[in-house]
Protein backbone atom coordinates (compact mmCIF):
# COMPACT_ATOMS: atom_id res chain seq x y z
CA UNK A 1 0.00 0.00 0.00
CA UNK A 2 1.22 3.44 -0.81
CA UNK A 3 -0.16 6.59 0.64
CA UNK A 4 1.07 10.01 1.37
CA UNK A 5 2.79 10.05 4.69
CA UNK A 6 1.14 12.10 7.37
CA UNK A 7 2.26 10.16 10.41
CA UNK A 8 -0.16 7.88 12.13
CA UNK A 9 0.81 7.04 15.65
CA UNK A 10 -0.09 8.36 19.03
CA UNK A 11 -0.02 6.54 22.32
CA UNK A 12 -3.27 7.09 24.08
CA UNK A 13 -4.72 3.65 24.51
CA UNK A 14 -2.46 2.70 27.36
CA UNK A 15 -4.71 3.53 30.32
CA UNK A 16 -2.11 5.89 31.75
CA UNK A 17 -1.82 9.65 31.78
CA UNK A 18 -0.47 10.98 28.51
CA UNK A 19 -0.22 14.76 28.89
CA UNK A 20 1.92 15.29 25.79
CA UNK A 21 -0.26 13.42 23.32
CA UNK A 22 -3.73 13.66 24.93
CA UNK A 23 -4.78 16.44 22.56
CA UNK A 24 -3.24 14.87 19.47
CA UNK A 25 -5.52 13.30 16.90
CA UNK A 26 -3.92 12.78 13.52
CA UNK A 27 -7.25 12.38 11.76
CA UNK A 28 -8.65 15.63 13.14
CA UNK A 29 -5.46 17.67 12.82
CA UNK A 30 -4.02 20.11 15.35
CA UNK A 31 -6.22 22.19 17.61
CA UNK A 32 -6.51 25.88 16.87
CA UNK A 33 -5.99 28.39 19.64
CA UNK A 34 -9.57 28.60 20.92
CA UNK A 35 -10.01 24.81 21.03
CA UNK A 36 -6.63 24.50 22.73
CA UNK A 37 -7.76 27.04 25.32
CA UNK A 38 -11.06 25.24 25.90
CA UNK A 39 -9.10 22.14 26.85
CA UNK A 40 -7.21 24.08 29.51
CA UNK A 41 -4.43 25.27 27.25
CA UNK A 42 -2.58 28.52 27.99
CA UNK A 43 -3.84 28.42 31.60
CA UNK A 44 -0.29 27.70 32.75
CA UNK A 45 1.08 30.60 30.72
CA UNK A 46 -1.63 32.98 31.97
CA UNK A 47 -1.12 31.98 35.59
CA UNK A 48 2.66 32.06 35.45
CA UNK A 49 2.85 35.47 33.80
CA UNK A 50 0.36 36.92 36.25
CA UNK A 51 1.24 35.21 39.48
CA UNK A 52 4.65 33.56 39.35
CA UNK A 53 8.12 35.05 39.20
CA UNK A 54 10.57 33.65 36.63
CA UNK A 55 12.39 32.12 39.58
CA UNK A 56 9.20 30.31 40.66
CA UNK A 57 8.91 28.80 37.17
CA UNK A 58 12.55 27.70 37.19
CA UNK A 59 12.17 26.19 40.67
CA UNK A 60 9.10 24.19 39.74
CA UNK A 61 10.77 22.76 36.65
CA UNK A 62 13.88 21.94 38.68
CA UNK A 63 11.76 20.15 41.31
CA UNK A 64 9.98 18.15 38.60
CA UNK A 65 13.22 16.37 37.59
CA UNK A 66 12.54 17.12 33.94
CA UNK A 67 15.58 16.12 31.92
CA UNK A 68 16.29 17.15 28.32
CA UNK A 69 14.58 14.94 25.76
CA UNK A 70 16.94 15.67 22.87
CA UNK A 71 19.29 12.85 23.78
CA UNK A 72 21.75 14.12 26.36
CA UNK A 73 19.32 14.21 29.30
CA UNK A 74 20.68 17.30 31.03
CA UNK A 75 18.35 18.50 33.84
CA UNK A 76 16.30 21.33 32.34
CA UNK A 77 15.99 23.47 35.47
CA UNK A 78 19.73 23.26 35.99
CA UNK A 79 20.37 24.25 32.36
CA UNK A 80 18.21 27.33 32.87
CA UNK A 81 19.91 28.19 36.16
CA UNK A 82 23.15 29.14 34.37
CA UNK A 83 21.47 32.00 32.50
CA UNK A 84 22.52 35.36 33.97
CA UNK A 85 19.61 37.04 35.75
CA UNK A 86 19.05 40.51 37.11
CA UNK A 87 19.03 43.99 35.64
CA UNK A 88 22.64 43.93 34.51
CA UNK A 89 22.30 40.63 32.56
CA UNK A 90 23.08 41.06 28.83
CA UNK A 91 20.00 41.58 26.67
CA UNK A 92 18.33 40.33 24.60
CA UNK A 93 18.45 36.77 25.87
CA UNK A 94 17.39 33.99 23.53
CA UNK A 95 15.48 30.76 23.75
CA UNK A 96 16.15 28.39 20.87
CA UNK A 97 13.95 25.39 20.13
CA UNK A 98 15.92 22.47 18.76
CA UNK A 99 13.43 21.01 16.28
CA UNK A 100 16.14 19.69 13.96
CA UNK A 101 15.08 16.07 14.37
CA UNK A 102 17.71 14.28 12.27
CA UNK A 103 18.88 11.45 14.52
CA UNK A 104 18.52 8.26 12.44
CA UNK A 105 15.47 6.31 13.56
CA UNK A 106 13.92 9.27 15.41
CA UNK A 107 10.46 10.61 14.59
CA UNK A 108 9.00 11.80 17.91
CA UNK A 109 9.24 15.60 17.74
CA UNK A 110 7.44 15.54 14.38
CA UNK A 111 4.35 14.19 16.16
CA UNK A 112 4.41 16.94 18.79
CA UNK A 113 5.03 19.72 16.26
CA UNK A 114 2.43 18.61 13.74
CA UNK A 115 -0.07 17.36 16.30
CA UNK A 116 -0.20 20.11 18.93
CA UNK A 117 1.72 23.28 18.01
CA UNK A 118 0.13 25.42 20.75
CA UNK A 119 1.43 23.04 23.41
CA UNK A 120 4.96 23.77 22.27
CA UNK A 121 4.36 27.49 21.92
CA UNK A 122 3.01 27.56 25.47
CA UNK A 123 6.17 25.72 26.51
CA UNK A 124 8.23 28.34 24.70
CA UNK A 125 6.38 31.21 26.43
CA UNK A 126 6.90 29.68 29.89
CA UNK A 127 10.53 28.76 29.30
CA UNK A 128 11.40 32.14 27.79
CA UNK A 129 9.72 33.78 30.78
CA UNK A 130 11.72 31.60 33.15
CA UNK A 131 15.06 32.68 31.71
CA UNK A 132 14.04 36.23 30.72
CA UNK A 133 14.36 35.68 26.97
CA UNK A 134 12.55 38.17 24.75
CA UNK A 135 13.40 36.44 21.46
CA UNK A 136 12.85 32.82 20.52
CA UNK A 137 13.95 30.95 17.41
CA UNK A 138 12.49 27.62 16.37
CA UNK A 139 15.20 25.76 14.45
CA UNK A 140 13.16 23.36 12.33
CA UNK A 141 14.52 20.81 9.91
CA UNK A 142 13.79 21.70 6.30
CA UNK A 143 11.88 18.50 5.56
CA UNK A 144 9.25 19.19 8.22
CA UNK A 145 7.09 21.37 5.96
CA UNK A 146 3.81 20.27 7.55
CA UNK A 147 5.17 21.24 10.96
CA UNK A 148 6.29 24.58 9.52
CA UNK A 149 2.79 25.36 8.21
CA UNK A 150 1.16 24.33 11.46
CA UNK A 151 3.64 26.37 13.53
CA UNK A 152 3.33 29.51 11.39
CA UNK A 153 -0.43 29.40 11.79
CA UNK A 154 -0.19 28.81 15.55
CA UNK A 155 2.34 31.62 16.03
CA UNK A 156 0.09 34.02 14.12
CA UNK A 157 -2.91 32.99 16.24
CA UNK A 158 -0.91 33.50 19.44
CA UNK A 159 0.26 36.92 18.26
CA UNK A 160 -3.29 37.98 17.41
CA UNK A 161 -4.42 36.81 20.83
CA UNK A 162 -1.74 38.79 22.64
CA UNK A 163 0.02 35.65 23.89
CA UNK A 164 3.11 36.70 21.96
CA UNK A 165 4.35 40.23 21.43
CA UNK A 166 5.02 43.14 23.75
CA UNK A 167 3.85 43.32 27.35
CA UNK A 168 2.03 40.00 27.22
CA UNK A 169 -1.19 40.20 29.26
CA UNK A 170 0.06 43.35 30.96
CA UNK A 171 2.89 41.40 32.59
CA UNK A 172 5.68 43.52 31.19
CA UNK A 173 7.12 40.42 29.54
CA UNK A 174 7.84 40.62 25.78
CA UNK A 175 8.38 37.66 23.47
CA UNK A 176 8.79 37.35 19.72
CA UNK A 177 8.97 33.87 18.16
CA UNK A 178 10.75 33.33 14.81
CA UNK A 179 10.90 30.23 12.65
CA UNK A 180 14.11 29.14 10.91
CA UNK A 181 13.98 26.28 8.42
CA UNK A 182 17.30 24.45 8.36
CA UNK A 183 19.04 23.85 5.07
CA UNK A 184 19.87 20.39 6.38
CA UNK A 185 22.85 18.92 8.19
CA UNK A 186 22.80 16.39 11.05
CA UNK A 187 25.38 18.33 13.05
CA UNK A 188 22.87 21.20 13.44
CA UNK A 189 21.34 19.12 16.23
CA UNK A 190 24.46 19.80 18.32
CA UNK A 191 23.44 22.93 20.21
CA UNK A 192 26.48 25.08 19.48
CA UNK A 193 26.57 24.02 15.81
CA UNK A 194 22.90 24.97 15.67
CA UNK A 195 23.76 28.45 16.93
CA UNK A 196 26.46 28.77 14.24
CA UNK A 197 23.85 27.85 11.61
CA UNK A 198 21.34 30.38 13.00
CA UNK A 199 23.97 33.10 12.73
CA UNK A 200 24.46 32.24 9.06
CA UNK A 201 27.62 30.19 9.24
CA UNK A 202 28.50 26.59 8.49
CA UNK A 203 27.17 24.44 11.33
CA UNK A 204 30.50 24.01 13.12
CA UNK A 205 30.32 23.33 16.86
CA UNK A 206 31.90 25.81 19.26
CA UNK A 207 34.21 25.30 22.20
CA UNK A 208 32.55 25.01 25.59
CA UNK A 209 33.01 26.95 27.81
CA UNK A 210 31.65 29.47 27.31
CA UNK A 211 28.34 27.62 27.39
CA UNK A 212 25.44 29.07 25.40
CA UNK A 213 23.72 30.15 28.61
CA UNK A 214 26.55 32.65 29.12
CA UNK A 215 27.47 33.42 25.50
CA UNK A 216 25.25 31.83 22.86
CA UNK A 217 23.45 33.37 19.90
CA UNK A 218 25.37 36.51 18.83
CA UNK A 219 27.24 36.24 22.13
CA UNK A 220 24.10 36.66 24.21
CA UNK A 221 22.73 34.35 26.93
CA UNK A 222 20.90 31.53 25.16
CA UNK A 223 19.17 28.31 26.13
CA UNK A 224 18.66 25.56 23.55
CA UNK A 225 15.88 23.12 24.47
CA UNK A 226 14.43 20.16 22.57
CA UNK A 227 10.81 20.15 21.39
CA UNK A 228 9.65 17.33 23.68
CA UNK A 229 11.36 19.00 26.66
CA UNK A 230 9.49 22.26 26.08
CA UNK A 231 6.16 20.49 25.57
CA UNK A 232 6.41 19.14 29.11
CA UNK A 233 6.78 22.58 30.70
CA UNK A 234 3.12 23.77 30.56
CA UNK A 235 1.99 20.55 32.24
CA UNK A 236 4.59 20.88 34.99
CA UNK A 237 3.58 24.47 35.69
CA UNK A 238 -0.13 23.64 35.66
CA UNK A 239 -0.15 20.36 37.56
CA UNK A 240 2.94 20.67 39.70
CA UNK A 241 6.30 19.05 40.17
CA UNK A 242 4.99 16.22 42.40
CA UNK A 243 2.40 15.21 39.82
CA UNK A 244 5.04 15.24 37.09
CA UNK A 245 7.44 13.07 39.09
CA UNK A 246 4.59 10.66 39.84
CA UNK A 247 4.06 10.02 36.13
CA UNK A 248 7.44 8.31 35.97
CA UNK A 249 8.45 4.87 37.15
CA UNK A 250 11.92 6.12 38.05
CA UNK A 251 13.75 9.19 39.38
CA UNK A 252 13.56 11.06 36.07
CA UNK A 253 10.20 12.80 35.97
CA UNK A 254 7.39 12.57 33.47
CA UNK A 255 6.33 10.49 30.54
CA UNK A 256 8.46 9.76 27.48
CA UNK A 257 7.61 9.42 23.83
CA UNK A 258 9.06 6.02 22.99
CA UNK A 259 9.18 4.66 19.48
CA UNK A 260 10.04 1.53 17.57
CA UNK A 261 11.05 0.95 13.97
CA UNK A 262 12.35 -2.09 12.12
CA UNK A 263 10.78 -5.55 11.69
CA UNK A 264 8.18 -5.29 14.45
CA UNK A 265 4.48 -5.89 13.88
CA UNK A 266 3.37 -2.37 14.76
CA UNK A 267 6.11 0.24 14.38
CA UNK A 268 5.05 3.48 16.05
CA UNK A 269 5.25 5.95 18.90
CA UNK A 270 3.79 5.68 22.38
CA UNK A 271 3.70 8.07 25.31
CA UNK A 272 4.53 5.94 28.35
CA UNK A 273 5.83 6.47 31.87
CA UNK A 274 9.52 7.30 31.93
CA UNK A 275 11.37 4.12 32.84
CA UNK A 276 9.17 1.72 30.87
CA UNK A 277 11.24 -1.28 29.79
CA UNK A 278 12.26 -2.04 26.23
CA UNK A 279 10.58 -5.44 26.58
CA UNK A 280 7.21 -3.88 27.35
CA UNK A 281 7.48 -1.51 24.40
CA UNK A 282 8.68 -4.22 22.06
CA UNK A 283 6.21 -6.92 23.07
CA UNK A 284 3.08 -5.04 24.18
CA UNK A 285 3.08 -1.86 22.15
CA UNK A 286 5.01 -2.79 19.03
CA UNK A 287 3.32 -6.20 18.97
CA UNK A 288 6.53 -8.23 18.95
CA UNK A 289 8.59 -9.24 15.95
CA UNK A 290 7.02 -9.82 12.52
CA UNK A 291 6.42 -13.45 11.62
CA UNK A 292 9.60 -15.14 10.51
CA UNK A 293 11.90 -12.62 12.22
CA UNK A 294 13.72 -13.05 15.50
CA UNK A 295 14.95 -10.26 17.78
CA UNK A 296 18.71 -9.82 17.97
CA UNK A 297 19.26 -6.39 19.49
CA UNK A 298 18.21 -2.78 19.42
CA UNK A 299 19.55 0.75 19.48
CA UNK A 300 17.49 2.32 22.30
CA UNK A 301 17.45 5.93 21.17
CA UNK A 302 18.64 6.61 17.65
CA UNK A 303 21.70 5.78 15.59
CA UNK A 304 24.22 7.12 18.07
CA UNK A 305 23.39 4.83 20.99
CA UNK A 306 24.92 1.45 21.94
CA UNK A 307 23.15 -1.78 21.05
CA UNK A 308 21.40 -3.60 23.86
CA UNK A 309 20.45 -7.28 23.59
CA UNK A 310 17.90 -9.74 25.00
CA UNK A 311 19.40 -9.85 28.51
CA UNK A 312 19.07 -6.04 28.82
CA UNK A 313 15.42 -5.75 27.82
CA UNK A 314 14.10 -5.52 31.39
CA UNK A 315 16.16 -2.47 32.31
CA UNK A 316 14.19 0.76 32.70
CA UNK A 317 14.55 3.05 29.69
CA UNK A 318 15.51 6.22 31.53
CA UNK A 319 18.58 8.39 31.73
CA UNK A 320 20.54 6.16 34.10
CA UNK A 321 19.01 2.68 33.73
CA UNK A 322 20.70 1.78 30.48
CA UNK A 323 24.20 2.52 31.70
CA UNK A 324 24.16 -0.97 33.23
CA UNK A 325 24.04 -2.29 29.68
CA UNK A 326 26.65 0.20 28.47
CA UNK A 327 24.07 2.20 26.59
CA UNK A 328 21.88 5.27 27.03
CA UNK A 329 18.34 6.47 26.40
CA UNK A 330 19.20 8.94 23.63
CA UNK A 331 15.99 10.01 21.92
CA UNK A 332 13.99 6.99 23.15
CA UNK A 333 13.08 5.82 19.66
CA UNK A 334 14.36 2.27 19.29
CA UNK A 335 15.69 0.73 16.09
CA UNK A 336 15.33 -3.03 16.08
CA UNK A 337 17.85 -5.43 14.57
CA UNK A 338 16.35 -8.74 13.41
CA UNK A 339 18.00 -12.02 12.48
CA UNK A 340 17.68 -11.47 8.71
CA UNK A 341 19.51 -8.15 8.87
CA UNK A 342 23.30 -8.12 8.85
CA UNK A 343 24.77 -6.37 11.92
CA UNK A 344 27.91 -5.50 9.92
CA UNK A 345 25.73 -4.00 7.19
CA UNK A 346 23.77 -2.04 9.80
CA UNK A 347 26.98 -0.62 11.28
CA UNK A 348 28.17 0.23 7.77
CA UNK A 349 24.93 2.07 7.07
CA UNK A 350 25.27 4.05 10.31
CA UNK A 351 28.97 4.88 9.91
CA UNK A 352 28.45 6.03 6.32
CA UNK A 353 25.76 8.38 7.61
CA UNK A 354 28.00 9.75 10.36
CA UNK A 355 30.99 10.07 7.99
CA UNK A 356 28.90 12.02 5.50
CA UNK A 357 27.41 14.23 8.19
CA UNK A 358 30.71 15.08 9.92
CA UNK A 359 31.17 18.84 9.72
CA UNK A 360 34.84 18.30 8.90
CA UNK A 361 36.17 20.66 11.55
CA UNK A 362 38.36 18.27 13.55
CA UNK A 363 40.70 15.70 12.03
CA UNK A 364 39.78 12.57 14.01
CA UNK A 365 36.15 12.87 12.97
CA UNK A 366 36.72 14.08 9.40
CA UNK A 367 39.32 11.43 8.56
CA UNK A 368 38.48 8.71 11.07
CA UNK A 369 34.82 8.19 10.24
CA UNK A 370 35.37 7.57 6.50
CA UNK A 371 38.21 5.19 7.42
CA UNK A 372 35.88 3.26 9.73
CA UNK A 373 33.14 3.20 7.08
CA UNK A 374 35.54 1.94 4.40
CA UNK A 375 36.87 -0.77 6.69
CA UNK A 376 33.31 -1.92 7.36
CA UNK A 377 32.51 -1.76 3.63
CA UNK A 378 35.50 -4.03 2.91
CA UNK A 379 34.40 -6.55 5.56
CA UNK A 380 30.82 -6.51 4.24
CA UNK A 381 32.09 -7.01 0.66
CA UNK A 382 34.17 -10.05 1.68
CA UNK A 383 37.48 -8.24 1.58
CA UNK A 384 38.00 -8.09 5.34
CA UNK A 385 41.39 -8.94 6.84
CA UNK A 386 42.14 -10.64 10.15
CA UNK A 387 43.41 -7.44 11.83
CA UNK A 388 40.38 -5.37 10.84
CA UNK A 389 38.38 -5.94 14.01
CA UNK A 390 41.28 -4.80 16.18
CA UNK A 391 41.58 -1.78 13.94
CA UNK A 392 37.89 -0.97 14.33
CA UNK A 393 38.08 -1.42 18.08
CA UNK A 394 41.07 0.88 18.21
CA UNK A 395 39.08 3.50 16.32
CA UNK A 396 36.17 3.29 18.72
CA UNK A 397 38.66 4.53 21.32
CA UNK A 398 40.51 7.00 19.07
CA UNK A 399 37.25 8.64 18.04
CA UNK A 400 35.82 8.38 21.56
CA UNK A 401 34.89 11.11 24.01
CA UNK A 402 37.74 13.50 24.73
CA UNK A 403 39.56 13.01 21.43
CA UNK A 404 37.25 15.02 19.20
CA UNK A 405 35.90 18.57 19.16
CA UNK A 406 32.28 17.56 19.81
CA UNK A 407 30.20 14.46 20.54
CA UNK A 408 29.53 13.56 16.87
CA UNK A 409 32.27 10.95 16.38
CA UNK A 410 31.95 9.52 19.91
CA UNK A 411 28.23 9.07 19.23
CA UNK A 412 29.03 7.39 15.93
CA UNK A 413 31.27 4.91 17.75
CA UNK A 414 28.54 3.80 20.17
CA UNK A 415 26.67 1.39 17.87
CA UNK A 416 29.95 0.07 16.47
CA UNK A 417 31.69 -0.61 19.77
CA UNK A 418 28.66 -2.46 21.11
CA UNK A 419 28.12 -4.38 17.84
CA UNK A 420 31.72 -5.58 17.97
CA UNK A 421 30.97 -6.91 21.45
CA UNK A 422 27.50 -8.38 20.93
CA UNK A 423 27.79 -9.58 17.33
CA UNK A 424 31.46 -10.53 17.24
CA UNK A 425 30.71 -13.87 15.56
CA UNK A 426 29.05 -12.12 12.65
CA UNK A 427 32.05 -9.87 12.05
CA UNK A 428 34.46 -12.82 12.29
CA UNK A 429 32.37 -14.93 9.96
CA UNK A 430 32.40 -12.20 7.29
CA UNK A 431 36.19 -12.18 7.38
CA UNK A 432 36.61 -15.96 7.61
CA UNK A 433 34.19 -16.77 4.78
CA UNK A 434 35.13 -13.66 2.74
CA UNK A 435 31.46 -12.83 2.17
CA UNK A 436 28.36 -11.51 3.88
CA UNK A 437 26.48 -14.58 5.16
CA UNK A 438 23.19 -12.64 5.07
CA UNK A 439 23.15 -12.37 1.27
Amino acid sequence: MTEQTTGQTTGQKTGQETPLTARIDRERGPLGLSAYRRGGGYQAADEALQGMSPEDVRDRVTESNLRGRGGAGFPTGKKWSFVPQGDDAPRPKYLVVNADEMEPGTFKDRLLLEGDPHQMIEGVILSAYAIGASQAYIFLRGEYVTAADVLRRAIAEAEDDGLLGDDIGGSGFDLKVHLHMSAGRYICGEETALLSALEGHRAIPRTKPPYPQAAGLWGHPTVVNNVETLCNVPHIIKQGADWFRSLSRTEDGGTKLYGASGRVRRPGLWELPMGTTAREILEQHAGGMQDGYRFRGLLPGGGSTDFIVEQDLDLPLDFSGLSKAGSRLGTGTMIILDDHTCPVGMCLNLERFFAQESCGWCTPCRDGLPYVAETLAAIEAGRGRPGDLDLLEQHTRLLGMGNTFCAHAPGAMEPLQSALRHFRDDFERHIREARCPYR
Partner: protein
Amino acid sequence: MLSEQEHEALTEEMARYPNRRAASIDCLVRLQQSRGWLSDEALSDLAPLLDMSVHELDALATFYNRLHRRPVGRHLVRVCDSVSCWIMGADSLCEALQKRLGVELGGTTGDGRFTLLTAQCLGNCDRAPVLAIDDEQYAISDIADLDEVLARHD
Protein backbone atom coordinates in the same frame (compact mmCIF):
# COMPACT_ATOMS: atom_id res chain seq x y z
CA MET B 1 20.18 40.32 -11.27
CA LEU B 2 17.61 39.71 -8.59
CA SER B 3 14.05 39.94 -9.79
CA GLU B 4 11.63 42.13 -7.93
CA GLN B 5 9.88 39.12 -6.42
CA GLU B 6 13.20 37.63 -5.34
CA HIS B 7 14.24 40.89 -3.74
CA GLU B 8 10.98 41.02 -1.85
CA ALA B 9 11.29 37.43 -0.62
CA LEU B 10 14.87 37.97 0.52
CA THR B 11 13.99 41.18 2.35
CA GLU B 12 11.27 39.27 4.17
CA GLU B 13 13.83 36.68 5.33
CA MET B 14 16.23 39.37 6.51
CA ALA B 15 13.58 40.99 8.70
CA ARG B 16 13.70 38.05 11.11
CA TYR B 17 17.32 38.53 12.11
CA PRO B 18 19.32 41.25 13.83
CA ASN B 19 21.93 41.26 11.02
CA ARG B 20 22.06 40.43 7.34
CA ARG B 21 24.51 37.57 7.50
CA ALA B 22 22.20 35.63 9.80
CA ALA B 23 19.63 35.51 7.02
CA SER B 24 22.12 34.10 4.51
CA ILE B 25 20.99 30.46 4.72
CA ASP B 26 17.29 31.37 4.50
CA CYS B 27 18.10 33.63 1.55
CA LEU B 28 19.98 30.85 -0.25
CA VAL B 29 16.97 28.57 0.27
CA ARG B 30 14.59 31.21 -1.08
CA LEU B 31 16.76 31.97 -4.09
CA GLN B 32 17.01 28.26 -4.84
CA GLN B 33 13.23 28.00 -4.67
CA SER B 34 13.04 30.71 -7.26
CA ARG B 35 15.78 29.43 -9.60
CA GLY B 36 15.87 25.68 -9.02
CA TRP B 37 19.55 25.60 -8.04
CA LEU B 38 22.33 27.93 -6.92
CA SER B 39 24.48 28.96 -9.86
CA ASP B 40 27.58 31.15 -9.61
CA GLU B 41 25.37 33.94 -10.87
CA ALA B 42 22.85 33.36 -8.09
CA LEU B 43 25.58 33.67 -5.47
CA SER B 44 26.92 36.84 -7.10
CA ASP B 45 23.44 38.32 -7.16
CA LEU B 46 22.89 37.60 -3.49
CA ALA B 47 26.30 38.57 -2.08
CA PRO B 48 25.97 42.38 -2.17
CA LEU B 49 22.52 42.27 -0.59
CA LEU B 50 23.93 40.39 2.41
CA ASP B 51 27.22 42.26 2.45
CA MET B 52 29.03 38.94 2.14
CA SER B 53 31.55 37.63 -0.37
CA VAL B 54 30.60 35.08 -3.02
CA HIS B 55 33.07 32.70 -1.38
CA GLU B 56 31.35 32.97 1.98
CA LEU B 57 28.06 32.10 0.32
CA ASP B 58 29.71 29.23 -1.56
CA ALA B 59 30.98 27.87 1.78
CA LEU B 60 27.36 27.67 2.92
CA ALA B 61 25.93 26.39 -0.35
CA THR B 62 28.43 23.51 -0.41
CA PHE B 63 27.85 22.62 3.26
CA TYR B 64 24.11 22.22 3.62
CA ASN B 65 22.44 19.12 2.18
CA ARG B 66 19.38 20.87 0.82
CA LEU B 67 21.30 23.45 -1.20
CA HIS B 68 22.29 22.51 -4.77
CA ARG B 69 25.27 23.96 -6.55
CA ARG B 70 24.48 21.95 -9.69
CA PRO B 71 21.34 21.98 -11.81
CA VAL B 72 18.61 19.58 -10.70
CA GLY B 73 15.44 18.36 -12.35
CA ARG B 74 11.99 19.84 -11.84
CA HIS B 75 11.38 17.35 -9.04
CA LEU B 76 13.80 15.98 -6.48
CA VAL B 77 13.33 12.32 -5.62
CA ARG B 78 15.11 11.61 -2.36
CA VAL B 79 15.19 8.05 -1.07
CA CYS B 80 15.82 7.78 2.66
CA ASP B 81 18.81 5.48 3.10
CA SER B 82 19.17 5.88 6.87
CA VAL B 83 19.10 2.95 9.21
CA SER B 84 15.39 2.19 9.73
CA CYS B 85 14.62 2.49 6.03
CA TRP B 86 17.74 0.46 5.21
CA ILE B 87 16.49 -2.37 7.44
CA MET B 88 13.11 -2.21 5.69
CA GLY B 89 14.51 -2.40 2.16
CA ALA B 90 15.78 1.04 1.10
CA ASP B 91 18.48 -0.57 -1.06
CA SER B 92 15.98 -2.40 -3.28
CA LEU B 93 13.83 0.73 -3.43
CA CYS B 94 16.82 2.75 -4.55
CA GLU B 95 17.79 0.15 -7.19
CA ALA B 96 14.22 0.06 -8.49
CA LEU B 97 14.17 3.85 -8.77
CA GLN B 98 17.47 3.93 -10.64
CA LYS B 99 16.12 1.37 -13.08
CA ARG B 100 12.74 3.06 -13.40
CA LEU B 101 14.24 6.53 -13.98
CA GLY B 102 17.23 5.29 -15.95
CA VAL B 103 19.69 7.33 -13.86
CA GLU B 104 22.32 6.69 -11.23
CA LEU B 105 22.15 8.35 -7.83
CA GLY B 106 22.77 12.06 -8.37
CA GLY B 107 21.58 11.84 -11.97
CA THR B 108 18.79 13.75 -13.72
CA THR B 109 16.44 12.18 -16.24
CA GLY B 110 16.89 13.22 -19.88
CA ASP B 111 13.63 15.17 -19.87
CA GLY B 112 14.76 17.17 -16.82
CA ARG B 113 11.83 15.89 -14.80
CA PHE B 114 13.51 14.06 -11.90
CA THR B 115 16.81 14.15 -10.06
CA LEU B 116 17.50 11.12 -7.86
CA LEU B 117 19.26 11.62 -4.53
CA THR B 118 19.40 9.97 -1.14
CA ALA B 119 17.95 11.61 1.96
CA GLN B 120 19.13 11.60 5.56
CA CYS B 121 16.59 10.05 7.94
CA LEU B 122 13.29 11.72 7.06
CA GLY B 123 11.76 11.15 10.50
CA ASN B 124 9.09 8.77 9.24
CA CYS B 125 10.75 5.61 10.49
CA ASP B 126 7.57 3.80 11.55
CA ARG B 127 6.49 3.82 7.90
CA ALA B 128 9.81 2.76 6.37
CA PRO B 129 10.93 2.59 3.65
CA VAL B 130 10.16 6.19 2.77
CA LEU B 131 10.99 8.53 -0.07
CA ALA B 132 10.38 12.21 -0.62
CA ILE B 133 9.43 13.86 -3.89
CA ASP B 134 10.02 17.56 -3.31
CA ASP B 135 8.17 18.23 -0.04
CA GLU B 136 5.82 15.22 -0.14
CA GLN B 137 6.79 12.02 1.66
CA TYR B 138 5.61 8.57 0.63
CA ALA B 139 5.80 5.26 2.46
CA ILE B 140 6.58 2.62 -0.15
CA SER B 141 5.69 -0.84 1.08
CA ASP B 142 5.43 -2.23 -2.47
CA ILE B 143 7.86 -1.25 -5.20
CA ALA B 144 5.06 -1.82 -7.73
CA ASP B 145 3.52 1.42 -6.42
CA LEU B 146 6.45 3.55 -7.54
CA ASP B 147 4.95 4.35 -10.95
CA GLU B 148 1.80 5.72 -9.39
CA VAL B 149 3.77 7.91 -6.99
CA LEU B 150 6.06 9.25 -9.71
CA ALA B 151 3.07 9.93 -11.97
CA ARG B 152 1.78 12.47 -9.43
CA HIS B 153 4.72 14.74 -10.25
CA ASP B 154 4.84 16.05 -13.81
